């Protein structure tokens, strides 16, 4: 089981990553946008930080209002189009009222099917 014939041919393919930092309170809505726009998965970590709208604590420390701490969500997609759609949709729908940022990055992936919309 240790050796696959295709291993030697494992190659890297260009893909995009969208990173979103947003209030925990809208995290599930953002997840819905991601899936709707064709993202096949995403990774979430608890975050804190500072921006235009002041400081957000990490949820490590007792805060009476925990839901205002932030999360960092990242989505890897094979297709630049999908990444752009997710980014724009999130900015458009949420970031006039809620705190948060979005940015894109280049990545290289091996298993492209994991990151392409179920077509």
């Amino acid at each position, binding site marked *: 089981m240790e050796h696959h014939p295709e291993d030697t041919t494992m190659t890297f393919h260009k893909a995009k990553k969208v990173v979103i930092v947003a209030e925990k309170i809208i995290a599930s809505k953002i997840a819905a946008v991601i899936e709707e726009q064709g993202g096949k998965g995403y990774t979430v970590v608890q975050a804190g930080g500072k921006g235009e709208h*002041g400081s957000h604590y990490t949820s490590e420390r*007792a805060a009476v209002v925990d839901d205002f701490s932030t999360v960092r969500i990242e989505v890897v997609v094979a297709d630049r189009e999908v990444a752009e759609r997710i980014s724009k949709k999130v900015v458009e729908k949420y970031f006039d*009222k809620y705190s948060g940022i979005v940015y894109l990055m280049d990545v290289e992936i091996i298993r492209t099917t994991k990151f392409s919309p179920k077509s």
Partner: protein
Amino acid sequence: MEFLADFFLRFLVQFQSPTLGFLIGGMLIAALGSNLKIPSAIYQFIVFMLLMKIGLNGGIEIREANLLAMALPAFFSVLIGVVIVWLGIFIFGLLPGVNKADGFATAGLFGAVSASTLAVAIVMLEEEGIGFEAWAPALYPFMDIPALILAIVLASIHEKKKAGGSEVKVEVWQIVKESLRGSALSALLLGLALGLFTKSEPILTSFYEPLFRGFLSILMLIMGMEAYDRIKELRSVAHWYAIYAGIAPLIHGFIAFGLGYIAHVLVGFSPGGVIILAVIASSNSDISGPPTLRAGIPSANPSAYIGASTSVGTPVSIAVGIPLFIALAQLVFDL
């Protein structure tokens, strides 16, 4: 005069209460820059324990209570929640430099109810030996939910109008569900149900009750630290929020005390129950209210309403409101 003297005496004595002491201690060490922190997990657990105790206790005693007697106080609770929000919106409408949405949200938060303040009131009444109806803490949702709904509905109507839209559709049922699903109300109602339907006395008296006051002391410490920490946020917004937060809790409490007195005369609502009603009116929501309002009125700035509530409203309703309403009750009901 005697009332004033009595109140001031009581007020001063209460500063020796460890509950208040921990609140002030928390503010003090935060002001001095202490690195002491109570972990978030502990805070969430403490809130759960307090609400479960209040719920179990209520559930157990409700079993043989005459729930009909609850009808009028429950109706008054709804009324108070609604009146507080209307009043708040009216007041903020008159004030210059106050963002509309922020006004709606702040009024909603002060109409809603704080479980922590309620817990302090219960301890204080026990200390004073003043009894109250077992179902009195269950008035909480009757005031909390209508206040939140009204604030969000009015804010949505306002927003829609501003945007030129005509038909206004707010999902009221959605807001009710969100409120009931919030961690505070869930725990309280679960406790009530378990108290009502299971033989939970042994677990209440051996576990939840003995830990109640101790956990409350730690909760007060956390709230004191947070009150101080949020003052700077409050400074970044119009000072009207702070002024409102300093006065409104007492006015709300007096309104509720008056209605409670009517219920006392009409259906024999107990003096302790009247105090509980005044305290929940005076309190402003700290756990479930903020996220509900953040979701419901997203254009409101959380620094305004949370700052006002955490840094001013809650300390005032705990440290000034509770002893005030107790002293008032002792005078009025000749306790």
